[in-house]
């Protein structure tokens, strides 16, 4: 993913990649939290 692709995305695409990004950041943070919790 680069800035050029973001700039040329349609509105619909931009909203979709925003939502996908939100989802993966949420998942990665949850995984990290879980791992830290498991290791005390």
């Amino acid at each position, binding site marked *: *993913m680069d800035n050029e692709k973001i700039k040329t995305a349609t509105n619909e695409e931009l909203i979709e990649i925003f939502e996908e*990004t939100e989802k993966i*950041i949420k998942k990665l943070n949850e*995984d990290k939290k879980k*791992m830290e919790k498991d290791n005390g």
Partner: protein
Amino acid sequence: MVKEYEEQINALNLLLDSMPKNNSKNQTIYVSKLEESINEYESYKSMIINEMNNRYMVYNSKKHYVTIDEDEKELKELLDHLILVLPINTPFEKSGLDKIIYNLRHYYDDSLINITNNIKKAINVFKSSNIHLNAKDFDYTPYCNEFMLCFFNNIDAEDFDSKMKIAFENVYWKCPEVIKHIELNIMFLYVRYKRKLEKHYSKIVCNSLKELNCSDSYELVDIISNKIGEIQTKENEETGKLIDSFITNVRKTSEFKEKNIIESYKLFVDKDLSLDEYKIYNNDLERLKNSIIENQNYLKYQYIVENIKKIIEQKDQYKNIYKTTYKAVSKCEKILKKINKQVKKSVKKDGSLIIKASPLMNDTINELSDLYRELSYHRLYEWLISNINENSTLFDCLRFAYSCFSFLEKSMKNNEDFESLDIIKIDDEHDELAKYLLDPYNNVLKNVYINQKIDIPLIICDHYKILNIEIDKSSVSDDSEKYIKALDNIIIYDKLSKSNIDFDEIDFLVYYEKNIKNTEKEEGKVIA
């Protein structure tokens, strides 16, 4: 592009799943990879929001707002002039005494401060005609006089309200209807000074017409209609409020998909055409919407027209009725004077009264209250029977109701659709009636006589059939809401198509306002 991005995310997920997490060293590597990925996607998020901010700025700046505050102010002033120059209106309506009396008559709904404010307003009406009232003028009954003595003695006092509260308490227990006595006293004074007030207001009318450069009230009605038309044109040019209606969920862009708009056109045009081809009907469809609304308004105010027709049918009953009622008022007031003499014998040195209002006084006051009310209606009925006839139009009838607040109030009272009435409801109906009456797009109102047996929905349908627009009577009357909504969507679609913003951009604005603006604002990532 989205697919490519999803694949990239899937690959990351696969990689993370396949990483060993069985010992502390592997777990540290795994966490480190997670952190690296979080940073990477956070930076994507920043770039995406940055781009979203830019687009939001561009699209949001396409919203066009018009300022109509000045026009609205001008319209309000013109409407105030109209009340002054309408031929049926006497100083009673022109000065606003009709509303003051209405408020005093319904004093039980009001606070003492509002009551005294209304009395002050009434005194000022007389004052503007160089009639300077004092406590002596308020001698309709000794109770009224006791209250008004305190009123005039303290009119400029800082503690006026608290002084009047005490005065009210003192008089109320001896005479609970003292406010009614004051109301009748004002009516009595109005009748006494009517000629002087008429003279004053005839000057005001002349000045008003001169100032507006028009010869009569009809010309002023045209000026006001033109002003309303100007405001409507300005509002039609505006896109800002329309776009905001999508953002606030009043409208949904899904209703404006091409196929939905074509479906809306098909309700009126019995042909399979492309969206562009349907557009030739737009002007006529806009006019059709105005016609349907005009019919709706006609039905809404039919109760007023029916009320007027009923009075005209019984015109023999109302011949010289004003004179007869006025005689009855004078007779009753003579009786009241005699009762007053008896009460005055109990006046203490400080001017306060000892005895309670007698049942005879209460009955006489109630009779006078009914008579004065009838007197104001009877003046209007006499005007109606000599000015409204078979050659009068619906416009003439509704203009009469608009002129006479008390007639509108009586008509509303007789209409079961209004469960309970108050000054706000009557004022709202009065304002709505003005909008309908003065709407420049009315066709029926000025062209239909009151006794004409006419099927307005049929006339509308026949007119538009000539223009190749298929519509039946029920679409104009019973199902009108559905058809107005379809016409509205066609008109809005056309308006936005002609503007510099498209529905995709509106969708983006809606999404941004809902999902980005509020959530990211706190983090300082959005510009708006």
